[in-house]
């Protein structure tokens, strides 16, 4: 490894060089920096942005691996029930390499991998390329935030998403959600969610409905007595009765439901959340604020009740486990840059996400999934929240100072 180190040392470009920032991020991937502190603070914390992003990236692993297994579970189950021998597209030849026994754990996992890995690879390469090209042209540092954006975006996709759509989504997220405003640290929207919202509205037929949540379903078509709908989708139509006849709460909590790749297991997501809160990378204020907002709002709607809208009756502990609430809560809402920047603001930001998500899920007739939009709305609110909180501080100070 001495060879590699001296290779990097020998080829270090000037800062004026076009490829300086590209060099810097690649070198940082292999070796930590040897740059000495200047100025008055001579020692620095060992944490850097790279490590922060790696912690989040590692925290997605439980959801990612469960997502792959779960995709295989539902995909193979569907093939078996329908009596199909093939998933109907290019995935099939790879799946056949291992097998399609619906009760075999390995086969399930392999099935999920065959679907997930191409999505992640596509998203990763596109996302990193967009970040690198944009940053090189704009002459600013390349941020490891793109690692996190790409993995979160991939996990928020439905299993059957066409790869080109995934690529266009992440490109939009990175470029429009982040780079146009100066890159990670200056974005006012969560880049992964911006991309997800883009494909959600750009390709609604492929990305919503009942057909996209189980791999292979869209190609082979539906079969009698089989529903590929998510718990949230069922709830929007049939309310609690509908959910209860399809899933138990335990199934939704531990993740034996169809859905976007990473969102299914609330349990594993909350574990990852606990890890991120322990490491202080995610703000516990945002997480508990969001939970509080969701619980209060959904309980209020339970009390109000409605004869025509079955969603009013869904209690908070179902809101927690169905749809992408938990995924958004732990991975998306806690994104520090687009969230509020003051401690008080983080509470308010969290609560507003919790309230808006229930409003969108229950009262809005068009989309049952509200977490994505709730977080994006709260991103837009965050500067106003911070402004209000700070003006309390500043007006108190200026009054005292001028007295």
């Amino acid at each position: 490894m001495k060879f590699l180190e001296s290779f990097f040392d020998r080829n270090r470009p000037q800062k004026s060089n076009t490829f300086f920032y590209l060099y810097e991020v690649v070198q940082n991937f292999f070796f930590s920096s040897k740059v000495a502190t200047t100025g008055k603070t001579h020692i620095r914390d060992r944490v850097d942005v790279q490590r922060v992003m790696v912690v989040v990236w590692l925290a997605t692993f439980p959801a990612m691996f469960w997502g792959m297994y779960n995709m295989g579970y539902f995909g193979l189950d569907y093939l078996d029930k329908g009596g199909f021998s093939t998933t109907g597209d290019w995935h099939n030849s790879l799946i056949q390499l291992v097998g399609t026994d619906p009760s075999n754990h390995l086969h399930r996992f392999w099935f999920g991998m065959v679907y997930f890995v191409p999505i992640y690879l596509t998203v990763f390469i596109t996302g990193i390329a967009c970040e690198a090209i944009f940053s090189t042209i704009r002459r600013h540092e390349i941020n490891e935030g793109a690692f996190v954006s790409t993995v979160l975006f991939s996990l928020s996709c439905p299993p059957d998403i066409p790869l080109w759509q995934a690529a266009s989504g992440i490109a939009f997220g990175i470029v429009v959600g982040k780079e146009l405003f100066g890159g990670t640290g200056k974005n006012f929207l969560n880049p992964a969610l911006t991309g997800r919202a883009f494909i959600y509205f750009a390709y609604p037929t492929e990305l919503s409905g009942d057909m996209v949540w189980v791999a292979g379903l869209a190609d082979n078509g539906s079969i009698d007595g089989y529903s590929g709908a998510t718990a949230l989708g069922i709830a929007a139509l049939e309310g609690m009765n509908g959910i209860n006849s399809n899933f138990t709460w335990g199934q939704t909590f531990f993740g034996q439901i169809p859905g976007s790749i990473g969102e299914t297991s609330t349990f594993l997501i909350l574990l990852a959340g606990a890890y991120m809160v322990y490491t202080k990378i995610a703000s516990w204020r945002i997480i508990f604020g969001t939970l509080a907002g969701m619980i209060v709002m959904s309980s209020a709607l339970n009390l109000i009740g409605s004869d025509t809208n079955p969603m009013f009756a869904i209690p908070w502990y179902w809101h927690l486990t169905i749809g992408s609430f938990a995924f958004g809560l732990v991975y998306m809402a806690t994104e520090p840059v687009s969230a509020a920047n003051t401690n008080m603001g983080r509470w308010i930001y969290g609560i507003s996400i919790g309230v808006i998500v229930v409003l969108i899920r229950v009262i809005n007739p068009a989309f049952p999934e509200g977490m994505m939009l709730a977080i994006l709305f709260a991103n837009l609110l965050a500067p106003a929240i911070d402004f209000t909180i700070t003006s309390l501080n500043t007006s108190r100070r200026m009054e005292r100072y001028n007295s």
Partner: protein
Amino acid sequence: MKEIKLKGGLNVPLFGSVEKFIVEDVESKFIGILSEDYFGLKPKFLLSEGDQVRVGQPIIEDKTNHGFKIVSPVSGVISSVNRGEKRALISVEIENDKKNTLFELNISGDIGEDLNSAGLWDSFRERPFDRVPNINSKPNYIFVNCCRKDPLELNPNLIISKENNFFDLGLDVLEELAEDAVFLCGNEEIETANENVEKFLISGKYPSGNSSAHIYKICPIRKSKKTWTISWQDVIRIGKYISTKSYCFEKYVSVTGSACIEPKLLKTVSGASLTELTAGNTNKESRLISGSALYGTSGDSYTSYLTRYSDQVTIISDERKANLFNWLKLGEKDHSATNVFLSSITKPEKFDFDTNVNGGYRAIVPIGVFDEVNVFDIDPTLFLKSLAIGDLVALRELGIFDLIPEDMSVFSYVCPSKYDYVALFKDCIDDIWKEENS
């Protein structure tokens, strides 16, 4: 006696603290006066390079602060006057002839004049700019800082209780000078015969020893009230001056740090050369810092002297190495304000530090550590972002007048994006000073 507990802050546990009160005298051959210690200084030279100088002889007069003079702490020859960009003064170096010939001490009866001619007027600094006040002005409040600012330096209380008489005499002078009150802030109860000063017991993590934290808790800064600060060391020096009626430039200095072979307490003269103070006390390639590792000045050959307001020298290792796949490192020996490393579970008592930045420079990613280590009355993330973009209007409102550069060092330490907020703060407060004084 009131207790003040400051929330927030951060303990940065380095190796190499001074524990025993054993004083070693060190005479320094070279002495430096650094212009960065004096905010807004526009020097007018009373002597020039090559001139003979006596103890207490004025060398520089500040054109922007009428009457204030910087004097020589030793006798000898002005060996060089170093200038930087646009011929701005960097430092004045004096070669000590060790003869100790005295300049005539002028005692008129006016406190300001007398302290100025004794070279002690710069003990005081006035908020908001942390600048030496005008010699004819009187403060409303004086904050005496007796806290252990950095955990490595010797507990000042040990020295204060030994020099008790002088400390009391010094407090009497402050008492006479201050129109409203003198506040005495220490980590432990400070023994003093003076009953008029208001005592405060401060507890909290770094940087709760900084005067800014005491000021905002005890008596926040107002435009109509003048607030001055002074450190315990200078109070003792003023006391010595009053009792002996002669110059006092001696200073207690803790030599500390993880690359220091034997941490110890020295008694030397103000402005002593760092290389001489640390000679033979380090065996690594190391960095000499006047001040603590978190806030201190490490000079080049022109400025490697004890700065005016520090009573500590820190030596830390300057050997930096690159780790392969650093982002996978468990980090059982790595200190962090976050809990991302294994060290958050194994909890070693102390850590070894080097001068590595430990990461690449990135845009600010406010993960919440700023709020956690903040002990001041500011919204740190917004404040630091305003510093980064140099928004002077916002900074005035967000509280830049309540703070001084040393308060920023804890934020520089924890910043995952590796910003240097101390430098940014300096730039911003310089610009504000220029706006208000032109």
